[in-house]
């Protein structure tokens, strides 16, 4: 952390704030760390005049990723369609606010034991399911247990692996016990898998019926095609201004774009970056370009030659011209990566770590040192990883050639990419969704024994600090620890991080949006249906 009153840092932060690159919360955090008082910092944070939301209308929403085989099972939520529908018809314990802070959804408050190994959530008594049933602590316990236990088929199992017990204490209190301290546990409850469903008598959940306690209830649905919802009058939260919500799956980029231009939908969850500039000229359309914690990573297996040599890894990191990649592949809609998986959109981001720049000469000399001159490696990728994923690897190949590195770009089939290529091939391109905190990210993909330790990186010090930081409730100490971890990942780790991608989505100009949009998913953290409104 920089010492107080660093004018450069303040400038940088204000600039970042203006461009919307960091959240209000992080801004205040770093501004105060940089020596500003809270009121001064709040004044710096320029705010638009808040618009008054109005009720009414049908919100037609085009989504970019939906499959006919999708289901309501929270354990297998995967496509955007599932995630967006989930945030519209179900509720979670906590949620990420527009400013990036953690806010209440079903849980009105939460508290931890001193060592952060036991968490207590108080549930609102106002919540009810669409079927009319009251929502109680039992439903929460059953819903969380859906992701635990031997028979669980949930993809979120790893996330809750350190949970030892979940108990209901009365109708409206839930107590969660953990094997060790985890200061971020309430953040985990915002994960899209953690949707609350009605409990069955035997302690399982009824996800099949599609019942939920969210702002809208499902009237009719055809997976992969559409989902029609109408407002749930007994919803416990604020907002839900639209009377009805109509979700359409528009997998084709041209179909989405045309639907938005012709007014067939009011918002789309993704626009093609290469047409962003052209679309911007349309006065009826507003494009949101929100920095996120989602990242493109390129893990190198540290247990396999030639990547077992740290100099080779660093040479490959130096051989990438991130600026050109961001300009040509992400069309500027990205935050430059620095080879540690901690985005400025997440809390505790260390802002003083020197940026790694493109340096083919340095890369060449590192290779010489490692005795790996004329290095040839294969890089696996697939079109589905990221729009322009293959192009990006081809561009990198050209850049690395200047450092004397020969990269073979291998386009793998989209199908089964994550089961057959990721974690199997030694050098791949991977896309990671936004995780709320650095701890979640590091624990999932960088911890030595993590199932998804995608680079097979083993660093004792990193793992030690990770565990310390997890249980640390003091923010300043925690930030120091994350800085150390970032340095270790950057200089020793096996993951090359080109950039953190922005969420680029669009809505019609007649849709009103809050002045801050959550960065956990596209469309205001996938909660556009309950947070946005029609202005006319």
């Amino acid at each position, binding site marked *: 952390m920089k010492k107080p009153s660093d004018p450069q840092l303040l400038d940088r932060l204000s600039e970042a704030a203006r461009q919307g690159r960091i959240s209000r919360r992080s801004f205040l955090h770093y501004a105060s760390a940089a020596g500003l008082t809270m009121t001064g910092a709040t004044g710096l944070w320029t705010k638009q005049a808040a618009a008054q939301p109005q009720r009414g209308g049908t919100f037609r929403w085009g989504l970019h990723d939906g*499959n*006919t*085989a*999708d*289901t309501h099972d929270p*354990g*297998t939520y*995967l496509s955007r369609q599932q995630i967006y529908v989930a945030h519209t018809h179900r509720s979670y314990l906590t949620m990420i606010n527009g400013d990036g802070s953690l806010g209440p959804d079903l849980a009105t408050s939460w508290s931890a034991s001193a060592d952060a190994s036991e968490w207590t959530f108080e549930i609102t008594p106002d919540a009810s399911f669409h079927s009319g049933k009251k929502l109680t602590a039992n439903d929460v316990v059953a819903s969380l247990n859906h992701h635990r236990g*031997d*028979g*669980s*088929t*949930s*993809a*979120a*199992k*790893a996330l809750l692996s350190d949970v030892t017990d979940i108990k209901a204490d009365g109708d409206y209190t839930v107590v969660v016990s953990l094997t060790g301290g985890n200061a971020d546990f309430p953040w985990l409850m915002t994960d899209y898998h953690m949707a609350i469903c009605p409990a069955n008598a035997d302690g399982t959940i009824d996800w*099949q019926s599609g019942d939920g306690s969210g702002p809208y209830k499902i009237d009719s649905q*055809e*997976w*992969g*095609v*559409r989902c029609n919802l109408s407002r749930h009058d007994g919803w416990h939260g604020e907002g839900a201004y639209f009377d009805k919500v109509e979700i*359409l*799956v*528009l*997998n*084709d980029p*041209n*179909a989405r774009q*045309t*639907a938005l*231009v*012709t007014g*067939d939908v009011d918002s789309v969850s993704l626009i093609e970056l290469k047409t962003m500039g052209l679309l911007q000229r349309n006065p009826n359309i507003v494009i949101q370009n929100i920095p996120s914690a989602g990242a493109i990573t390129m893990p190198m297996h540290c247990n396999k030659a030639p990547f077992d040599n740290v100099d080779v890894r660093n040479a490959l990191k130096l051989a990438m011209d991130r600026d050109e990649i961001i300009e040509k592949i992400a069309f500027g809609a990205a935050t430059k990566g620095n080879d540690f998986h901690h985005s400025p959109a997440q809390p505790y981001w260390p802002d003083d770590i020197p940026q790694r720049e493109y340096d083919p000469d340095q890369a060449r000399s590192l290779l010489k040192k490692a005795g790996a001159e004329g290095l040839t490696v294969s890089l696996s990728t697939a079109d589905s990883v990221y729009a322009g994923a293959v192009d990006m690897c081809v561009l990198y190949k050209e850049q690395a050639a200047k450092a004397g590195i020969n990269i073979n770009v291998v386009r793998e*089939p*989209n*199908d*089964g990419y*994550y*089961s*057959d290529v*990721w974690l199997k091939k030694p050098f791949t391109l991977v896309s990671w969704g936004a995780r709320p905190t650095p701890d979640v990210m590091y624990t999932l993909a960088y911890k030595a024994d993590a*199932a*998804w330790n995608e680079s097979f990186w083993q660093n004792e010090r990193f793992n030690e600090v990770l565990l310390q930081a997890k249980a640390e409730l003091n923010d300043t100490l925690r930030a120091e620890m994350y800085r150390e971890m970032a340095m270790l990942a950057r200089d020793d780790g096996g993951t090359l991080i080109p950039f953190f991608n922005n969420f680029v989505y669009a809505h019609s100009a007649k849709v009103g949006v809050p002045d801050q949009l959550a960065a956990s998913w596209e469309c205001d953290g996938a909660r556009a249906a309950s947070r946005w409104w029609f202005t006319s």
Partner: protein
Amino acid sequence: MGDIARLVAKRLGLGLLTLLVVSVLIFFAVELLPGDIAQAVLGQGATEENVAALRERMGLNKPAPVRYFEWLGGAVTGDFGVSLISGEKVTTAITGRFVNTLFLATYAAVIAVPLAIILGVIVALLRNTIFDRVANVMTLTSISSPEFFLGYILILFLAVKNPYFPALASLSEGMSFGEILHRTFLPALTLVLVVTAHMMRMTRAAIINLLASPYIEMARLKGTPPWKVIVKHALPNAWAPIINVVALNIAYLITGVVLVEVVFVYPGIGQLLVDAVSKRDFPIVQACCLIFAATFILLNLAADVGAILTNPRLRHPK
């Protein structure tokens, strides 16, 4: 006519055999695909543990042949099983989609087939004139652009620049028939452009192929006008290849329109099949493929019967 009835019965029997072979092929192809359904459902979030649990739940731990015969046992009694992922009955999952696909295919075929044959006869009549060349260049250009690209161009000109037709062909309940025709016009037009050229050129080729035959020469020498020579004398003998190519293209309209469905967001069966393949949802894949295969077999049978009916020599084999 008894011969034809016998032929139809025989071919239907063979058709069932074909379906059986297709089902075996599809089953093992899906089995051989890298990754399995459990991994596909969990995506990036798959770990060994939850994949194993999901496999257990879906009954994937039995050996493949056992699973195939279980499915087959159900299928012969009309029970095509349930989707492994959603647990929905396969028949309910497919019916609505298939009706949509059939509707779009019929819509396109009703325009394309007469258009192609009439155009084919006209260009055969006016062969090697400007009209022939222009018709050729136009139809060839239309089929040589990828169909999604054709769709994009039609959307640009007929939906965005001049909003005559909606860009999204999404259907909802309670639409009148006229409204449905209007909404689905652009995808139908795209398909018409895609299939017309093939049928038209085949008609033209089949007719021209016959024009040097002695009997045509004879008719011409008798002083029959050229159009009459073609329509009365050449066309009847050209039916066999024409019917064949028409059957092929109608089958294509039903089975091969995934990309058009994607571009116009039309809820047809193609998208369902591609999704099911990517998720390895075997019962759905199998049912879709069998529907396609059956469509194919029936259309082919129709084409063969048509060819026999239009060729007296085949009707009365020596």
